[in-house]
C-alpha cells in the first residue's frame, strides 16, 4: 500500500474514504429529498400536535396537583409575571413621556435663554 502511495496514486484507504464519503453524500441528498416531501410534513405536523397536546396535559395535571396542595404552580407564577409585564409596559410608556417632556422643556429653556 505504501509503495502505491509513493507513486502518487491513491491508497486503498483513500479510495475507501472517497467511497464512504460518496455514499454519505448520496444518503444525505436522499434524506433531504425525503424530508422535503409533503407526506413527511404531514407526519411532522401530527407528531408536533401530539407532543404539544401531551405537554399541555402534563403541565395542567402538574398545576392541578400543586394547586390542590396549596402550593403556587407554574401557572400562578406565569400569571404574576404577566401582571408584572403589563406594569412594566405602562412604566416604559410613562418614562418615555417624561423623557420627551424633559426634552421639550430643555428646548424651550434654551430657546428663551437665546432670546
Amino acid at each position: 500500500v505504501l509503495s502505491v502511495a509513493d507513486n502518487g496514486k491513491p491508497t486503498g484507504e483513500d479510495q475507501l474514504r472517497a467511497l464512504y464519503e460518496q455514499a454519505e453524500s448520496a444518503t444525505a441528498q436522499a434524506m433531504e429529498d425525503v424530508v422535503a416531501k409533503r407526506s413527511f410534513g404531514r407526519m411532522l405536523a401530527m407528531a408536533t400536535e401530539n407532543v404539544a397536546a401531551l405537554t399541555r396535559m402534563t403541565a395542567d395535571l402538574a398545576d392541578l396537583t400543586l394547586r390542590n396542595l396549596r402550593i403556587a404552580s407554574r401557572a400562578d407564577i406565569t400569571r404574576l409575571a404577566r401582571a408584572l409585564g403589563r406594569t412594566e409596559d405602562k412604566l416604559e410608556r410613562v418614562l418615555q413621556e417624561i423623557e420627551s417632556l424633559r426634552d421639550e422643556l430643555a428646548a424651550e429653556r434654551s430657546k428663551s435663554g437665546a432670546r
Partner: protein
Amino acid sequence: VNVLVRIARAPLDALELANILLTTDDAVLGATPRDAVWTHRATTLYRYRSSLREHPIPLLLVFALINRPEIFDLRPGGSLVEFLIEEGFDVFLVDWGYPDEEDADMGLDDYVCDELHWAIRETLRCSGADELTLVGWCIGATLCAMYCGLDGDGEQTAVRNLMLLTMPIDGRSSTYASWVGSPAFDAERIAEQFRVLPGGMVDIANKLLKPVTNFWTSYRRLGQSVADGSARRDVYQPMARWIADNPNFPGRAWAEWIALMYRDGALADGRTRLRGRSVDLRRIEQNLLVVTAAADHIAPREGTMPIFELVASHDVTHFDRAGGHIGLIAGSAARRELWPDIAAWLVERSHE
C-alpha cells in the same frame, strides 16, 4: 505501519473528541465588553465599549427570535462586533432574551412596533445621533424590513441605512413551507398548547432540513479532524455552543410568523398589518444592502429576491456570496471575504 499507528492512537483521539464535545458548554461567547443601556421585559439593548468610535452613525444589530444574538460576537478574532468596533463604529445590539410562558402573548407587532422601535429610540438617545444603521439578520432582518415598511408617523426616517443579512420575506418555496404551509398544520392550536414553542423543538426542525449533515456528518468530520490533527476546538466549540442555545419562541409570534412567511406571502404582497398599520416594503427608502448566501437552506435566496422588486430605495447593493445561512456571516472565512466589504459599504454611508 500507518494503520498500526492509527490504531494505537485511536483511544487518545476518542478521548480528545469526547473532551471537545463534553466541554463545548465552557466555550465563551460574546466576550466583547458591553453595557446594558435599556431593558424592557425580556429585551435588552447593549452598547459595546469602544475608544475607537469615529463614524457618527451608530449601528443597531438585530438578530432572529430563534437562537441567540451572540453569533454577532462569536469568539475573539471571529467576532463581527469586534471587527466593526475596530473599524470605528458605535455598535449597539438588541437581545430578545429568553422568552417564557409569560411572554406567550408577544406577537410580531410587539417586536416591531414596541421592542424594536424603542430600541431604536434608546440607541439614538444614548449615542446622541439623529440617524442610525439597522443591521438585521434572518428573522431579525425581516423585523427590520417590516419596521421600515410601516405606515405611520414617519419614525422610520431615523433609519438611514438598512442592512439585511440572509433575510426571508417569502418562504413559500422552501422546505419549511411543505411542513407548515398546509392548512392541516394548525399553527395557532400548537401555539396555544405550547404557549411558547420550546427552543429545542425549533432547533430539531432546523436540523431536520439536512438530517444526515446535522446529525451525523458534522460529528464525523470533527472526529476525522481530531484523527488527522487539524481539529480547532477554539473554532468548533463556540459555534457548537451557539447552535445548542435555543431560546423559546413566543407562541403568538411563532404562529404569526408561520402564516406570514409560509402560507399567504402577505409580506411580499404588501398585505401585512401590524396594529392596524399596513406594512409595505415599497415604503423602504433607506440606503439598502442585502446579503444573500448561495447555499442558504434556512432562508433560501429565492425567498429574499422579491425585495429588489419592491423597495423604493435609490441606493441598493446586493452581495450574493457562496456560503450558508450562518456560515456566510459568522464562518471562519467571513472576516476575510465579507466583513471588509460590509465595512466599506457602511463607511461610505456613515458620514454626516
